[in-house]
């Protein structure tokens, strides 16, 4: 038996109570798309599942001032068709839209993807570019944590689903002109983890035609989520032009340093980092109103 007991709490406090009463023997689950496979393979064990999909208060996609907040139960499909996210953070929409298949997207949650900490997880890569944060609640505490810190190792996040739960994720949108884009390369167009994927978020000063800032998330290139900080530093304050973007892409490729894998040798994957970073930056710049 993969589990012995199954709970269906209807509120956050009820969920935390159940987890507490099981003393680490129960595990939170939403879409379960990753969890069931991990349980079957023996990568994880649990005595009980705590199905939180009935907690209505966790199903929201909303604007809160300068922030966009996405509840823990929002599925990839819901993000992909959200007008709000499409308009403001298309990098996340594009990423969510390409996860798995329609069936997987209909139940798998974006937050769940973060907790699964898959290095090739599309939404994680996009959330890196958005500098997103998670809000985590546990018995008697609530804390915030950047997504980039939440993933500790492939398959292991800092969140302990036997004790605490994520309520939502959020990211801030700047006042200035901004744009984002997601680029993905895979061996087929559905149900394949990416060979390489890049999420880019840029803020431009349109008057001076310069980058105010850029964030570039790349995966899978490292055991933990990777931000191409050297490339980001190069772009900060610099003129928006193709040669610079190419140089940034080069730096990203150098720093990402992917290794050989069944999906491609190291030289190829490194080159693909460059190609995808360039493409993502160009599209993000265009969405921000810039010209290249």
């Amino acid at each position: 038996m993969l589990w012995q007991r199954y709970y269906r709490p209807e509120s956050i406090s009820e969920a935390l109570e159940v987890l507490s009463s099981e003393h680490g023997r129960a595990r939170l689950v939403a879409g379960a798309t990753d969890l069931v496979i991990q349980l079957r393979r023996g990568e994880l064990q649990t005595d009980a599942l705590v199905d939180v999909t009935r907690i209505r208060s966790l199903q929201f996609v909303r604007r809160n001032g300068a922030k966009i907040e996405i509840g823990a139960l929002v599925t990839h499909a819901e993000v992909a068709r959200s007008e709000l996210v499409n308009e403001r953070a298309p990098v996340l929409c594009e990423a969510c839209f390409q996860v798995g298949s329609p069936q997987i997207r209909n139940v798998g949650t974006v937050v769940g993807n973060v907790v699964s900490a898959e290095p090739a997880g599309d939404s994680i890569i996009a959330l890196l570019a958005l500098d997103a944060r998670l809000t985590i609640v546990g018995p008697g505490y609530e804390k915030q944590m950047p997504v980039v810190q939440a993933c500790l190792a492939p398959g292991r996040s800092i969140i302990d689903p036997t004790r605490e739960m994520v309520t939502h994720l959020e990211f801030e949108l700047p006042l200035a002109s901004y744009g984002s884009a997601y680029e993905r390369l895979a061996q087929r167009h559905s149900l394949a983890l990416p060979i390489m994927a890049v999420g880019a978020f840029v803020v431009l000063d349109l008057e001076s035609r310069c980058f105010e800032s850029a964030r570039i998330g790349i995966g899978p290139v490292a055991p933990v989520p990777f931000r191409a900080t050297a490339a980001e530093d190069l772009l900060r304050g610099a003129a928006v032009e193709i040669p610079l973007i190419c140089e940034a892409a080069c730096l990203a490729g150098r720093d990402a340093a992917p290794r050989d894998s069944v999906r491609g040798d190291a030289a190829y994957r490194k080159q693909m980092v460059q190609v995808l970073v360039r493409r993502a930056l160009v599209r993000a710049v265009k969405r921000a109103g810039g010209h290249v």
Partner: protein
Amino acid sequence: MSRERLEFCLNGRPIVVDVDAGEMLADVLRDDLGMVSVKKACGEGVCGACTVIMDGWAVVSCIMPAGRAHNTSVTTLEGLARNGELDRLQAAFAEEGAVQCGYCTPGMLMSAKALLDSNPCPSREEIRLAISGNLCRCTGYQRIVRAIERAFTRGG
């Protein structure tokens, strides 16, 4: 080993079933409720042969804990026909030659049904997208796409 009681709507009828803990929805549908159109072919939610419709959305049932179905509305292929009459999709699949070995057919029909219920006039691209989680090794997808087109252009 504990059991749990599930109550949900299956193919338009309310049902109550006691299931073993640790079971997936696909197993409950097949083994406890006789819905053998739900096929298990990969165990990873990749091939889509186990696709059912839950609250209007196409989902894979082989990696879905059975408890998730509680208080939901689930449709399998057995529930597609109404009063003994085939749904226009079923007729279109048969007439268009979209069925070869037939193993992917239940899952395909579920994905197609979910599509047409939310998008009555999909483009060819949208159709291909809707079935992009359903593996077929026989047909090359060609006639399946055509059958879905035929189903909604014909009306009914």
